[in-house]
């Protein structure tokens, strides 16, 4: 097995009486985007703080490339884009890149970074004179300027327009294709769906679900069978494997866990059935299902 780029192993972190992380295991693999999802207050920020060496766990193990994150040599292999970091407004973009690059052993050149992120025309502008979206791009440039093997992206596309977001995604994909690891936290589930190979869902300080995007989408998620049929709603509701049925003007919407047996039964019971359609929930719906339930109040 490859050694992971970063790892949390049985990590417990308390802040006073509140347990922010309660036995969390998380591996961030090389060559993959791992999305860490969860409602606000679930422990995402704590997990990232631990991985960046900003905090130490009460128990368990936190490692970057097999080393404690407090070690400078381990952190020289990471790039960081935090959600809230106001850079000095009077410094020019090129100066900020030069400053951050100086921390790294083999940084990319200024020109290369500027081309990658598309900030060539901003290099001489003071950071404070940029728009929110431009500032976000500069922060992304600072995250990649050190040629890192592991990239921490905390809500990277907040405030970006669609074009800039796509451009950032493409850079991330290219880096991952070259073998970089990425830890992504985002509120945009479509972003996780578009970028991530692996997803971990954090709830109340625990990883409640983890797997590939497809696995997460599949876990506990119902499918919808929609069709036009003369069958009665009450009749279909009695069938095995059917969780819920709603209908109007002969249009049925049947919620199931496994679609195929119910589809067979439908076709057998109603030869005139038409407009058959089976849809699977996206990551957003899966996420809602995973994080709702008895602990939902935490998500508010």
């Amino acid at each position, binding site marked *: 097995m490859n050694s992971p780029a970063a790892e949390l192993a049985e990590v417990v972190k308390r802040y006073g009486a509140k347990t922010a992380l309660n036995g969390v295991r998380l591996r961030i693999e090389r060559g993959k985007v791992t999305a860490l999802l969860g409602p606000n207050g679930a422990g995402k920020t704590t997990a990232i703080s631990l991985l960046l060496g900003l905090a130490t766990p009460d128990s368990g193990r936190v490692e970057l490339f097999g080393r404690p994150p407090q070690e400078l040599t381990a952190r020289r292999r990471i790039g960081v884009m935090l959600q809230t970091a106001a850079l000095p407004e009077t410094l020019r973009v090129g100066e900020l890149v030069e400053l951050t690059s100086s921390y790294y*052993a083999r940084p990319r050149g200024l020109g290369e970074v500027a081309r990658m992120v598309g900030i060539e025309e901003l290099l001489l502008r003071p950071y404070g004179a940029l728009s929110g979206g431009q500032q976000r791009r500069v922060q992304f440039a600072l995250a990649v300027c050190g040629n890192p093997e592991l990239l921490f992206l905390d809500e990277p596309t907040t405030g970006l327009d669609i074009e800039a977001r796509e451009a950032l995604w493409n850079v991330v994909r290219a880096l991952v294709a*070259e073998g970089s690891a990425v830890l992504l936290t985002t509120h945009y589930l479509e972003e996780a769906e578009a970028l991530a190979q692996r997803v971990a869902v954090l709830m109340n300080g625990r990883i409640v679900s983890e797997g590939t995007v497809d696995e997460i989408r599949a876990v506990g998620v119902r499918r919808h069978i929609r069709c036009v049929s003369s069958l009665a709603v009450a009749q279909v509701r009695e069938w095995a494997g059917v969780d819920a049925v709603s209908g109007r003007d002969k249009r049925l919407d049947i919620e199931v866990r496994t679609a195929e047996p119910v589809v067979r039964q439908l076709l057998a019971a109603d030869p005139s059935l038409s407009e058959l359609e089976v849809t699977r929930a996206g990551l957003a719906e899966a996420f809602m299902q995973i994080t709702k339930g008895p602990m939902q109040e935490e998500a508010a």
Partner: protein
Amino acid sequence: MMSSVAAITTPSSVAAGSVSILRVFLVETRMECLRLLRAPSFAVPIILFPLMFYALFGLLLGNSGHPGQEASRYVLATFVAFGAIAPGLFGIGITIALDRDRGLLQLKRALPMPPGIYLVAKLVTSMVFAAVVSMALMLLAAIVGKVVLELVQWVTLFVLAVLGVIPFCGMGLMVGTLVKGQAAPAVLNLIYVPMSFLAGIWVPLSVLPHFLAQLAPVWPAYHLAKLAQSVVSGNSTDLLPHVLDLVGMAALFFAIARRALRKLR
């Protein structure tokens, strides 16, 4: 099972390449200087205020009474001490409070910045500003004020200003770590102005009420002014207590700030 991708991307030998601490320090210090220089809210109080006050109190008002060389030197020395206050107090105090408030300190800690460089760069930046201010004051004094000093006295005054900024860096650091960003400038001004007054820089201690004059030694500015004055008067008796007081105060401020910074973790 090592994939080919992993083989390319685990060049630990390359990743462990060296970073020049000296270079990081130089770049960081240069950026910190530029950052302050370009922000009028820093540059004006740090550089212009001491020059303006010296020109007003030292040159304009002082010259009207045809003061002797001795009095002119005394005023210059006092203002060289004054010029070392703001670079430390504001240069460090406000930027730390801002960095803390706006998440920049957090980001810098996450980045692979060698420990200590952040503070050392700020300290040296304050020293650079103190050097510039004292140079400008001395040029003004020599050219406009016709102040005459031995070379060794000029140099000693300069060195005193550059090192004398350190206790005020400690004060700034202490305030910047204890007070939230927006409140820090207010608190620093509440120290800056009364301290300058009560340490006998703007007016002689003899015109202050007796009990306030007696309290002057609690202010580091008082001791720095005393040292500067002794440099120009050539009267070097009993300097050690002032030096020790300054060192002690600086140590105390840095210790308090260190505690506060630790708690932030």
